[in-house]
């Protein structure tokens, strides 16, 4: 994986990435909100930065930059709701920069990036309330979500919003699949940043991950065949001295 990363940084190989339908749909969602003259809601999920689900929030934020730029370009109101206090300033700065980049710095309103308490359901009730009051026309949710996923998806459905959602939390994916118009499954959100920015370093990292997966696949196949004939060589190797006890 590191090797792949190195190769791309040196510019030896820039991999291409397969199409992710959910991300293509964001433009459509923003466009529709503009046509209807209503606002957009975005949330980067509720995962804290200092946890292993933190990367999902970072992925959400990289999509936010994209959404904010589109919103600034089309002059459509964008509401961003935040659960993790540390994320609030990041989101605010990302949105501000996006407005500057789109040439509309005066349209940026810091009061539209709202911190709604770090308690899961206080946050959820705030989001659902906001979606109803503002009658949002598009609801974009990319990041780590837990039980509130369905509250958001149904809440936004009730106000008739078009929805793009994605999370790597497996227990919540079925709701996004069932209740939203477009859905990013699992790792797809982690690839979103690379997909949008086309940044060679990030693309290289995705390429590296793919190699990691291929190696895993080989290990699983070989290991299973060995296990079926009762040979535990590979198993012992894995359990062996590789790890501290």
């Amino acid at each position, binding site marked *: 994986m590191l090797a792949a990363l190195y190769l791309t940084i040196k510019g030896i190989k820039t991999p291409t990435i397969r199409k992710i339908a959910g991300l293509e749909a964001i433009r459509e969602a923003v466009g529709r909100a503009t046509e209807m003259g209503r606002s957009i809601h975005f949330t980067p999920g509720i995962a804290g930065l200092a946890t292993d689900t933190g990367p999902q929030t970072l992925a959400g934020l990289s999509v936010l930059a994209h959404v904010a730029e589109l919103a600034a370009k089309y002059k459509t109101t964008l509401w961003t709701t935040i659960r993790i206090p540390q994320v609030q300033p990041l989101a605010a700065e990302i949105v501000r920069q996006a407005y500057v980049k789109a040439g509309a710095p005066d349209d940026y309103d810091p009061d539209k990036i709202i911190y709604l308490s770090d308690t899961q359901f206080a946050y959820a009730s705030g989001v659902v309330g906001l979606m109803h009051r503002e009658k949002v026309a598009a609801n974009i949710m990319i990041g780590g979500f837990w039980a509130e996923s369905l509250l958001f998806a149904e809440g936004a459905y009730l106000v008739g919003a078009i929805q793009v959602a994605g999370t790597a939390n497996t*227990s919540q994916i079925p709701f996004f699949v069932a209740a939203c118009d477009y859905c990013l499954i699992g790792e797809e959100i982690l690839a979103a940043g690379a997909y949008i920015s086309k940044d060679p370093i990030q693309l290289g990292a995705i390429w590296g991950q793919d190699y990691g997966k291929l190696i895993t696949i080989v290990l699983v196949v070989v290991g299973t065949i060995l296990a079926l004939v009762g040979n535990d060589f590979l198993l012992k190797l894995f359990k062996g001295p590789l790890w501290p006890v």
Partner: protein
Amino acid sequence: MSFFDKLQNVDRRVIFLVTFLIVALPLVRPIGLPIPIGPMTQAFYDTVEKLKPGDVVMISFDYSAAVLAEQYPQSKSAIAHVLAKGAKIVAVCFWPDAPTFIDNAITDVLGKAQDHPKYGVDFINLGWVAGGETAMASFGKDIHATCAKDHYGKPIGALPLMKDVKSAKDFKLVIALSTGTPGYRELVRQIQAPYAIPLVVGVTAVTAPEVRPYFPQQIGGVLEGLAGAAEYEILLKRYGYVGTLSAPMDAQSLGHLLVIFFVVLGNIGFVLKKYGKAK
């Protein structure tokens, strides 16, 4: 609007009202359906059953008020089971809401918590340890340094139970009652894997599918939501434990049937309409 359209477009308020009534009914008038035991609950029970008198068990309460309905009954039964085996409990939580639930659960099982004569001897409530996964890591390494005082502000060094319990190595079993992050995954990483201590978990039903890949080597057994708690209660009957979950499980059954009913209803309309169009 045709009949098939109507089948597909029942007003959500009607659905809400029906849901409310169907779930409320068995709570007022229980049916008493028999509850079969699932393999995950059995595995959980068997693991706890292996404890010997005097063993120390860490119970980690990592849930919030929102899921009390599912995890509180699990907590009570787990405490009762461990104590019935003569083992000792170090109760701790990494979620800020939970110290009160530890207190309540112990009170429900023993009648008293902090004022109980065996407090500090057979069980202890260390309260909330802030810092999520980091806190779990340092708790595993050195309990006394991580939380010098229990939930009530007593220094834990003075309590007889904690004299021999210095780090995670002194636990014979970890019971994780967890909803999300931090929870069982972080405990597997920071306690189970580095110290090689058996771990069993009680989770909400939502988390149950995610826990499966860790069974049986990393996690020894799982209580899956309210159903898991109800099955566990039945297994604990031999210790004279009195359960309370028979009526709620009836409500649960009817709730599931209701969801299936609505799914079928929606699909009848959908399929018939499609079929009609094809003609």
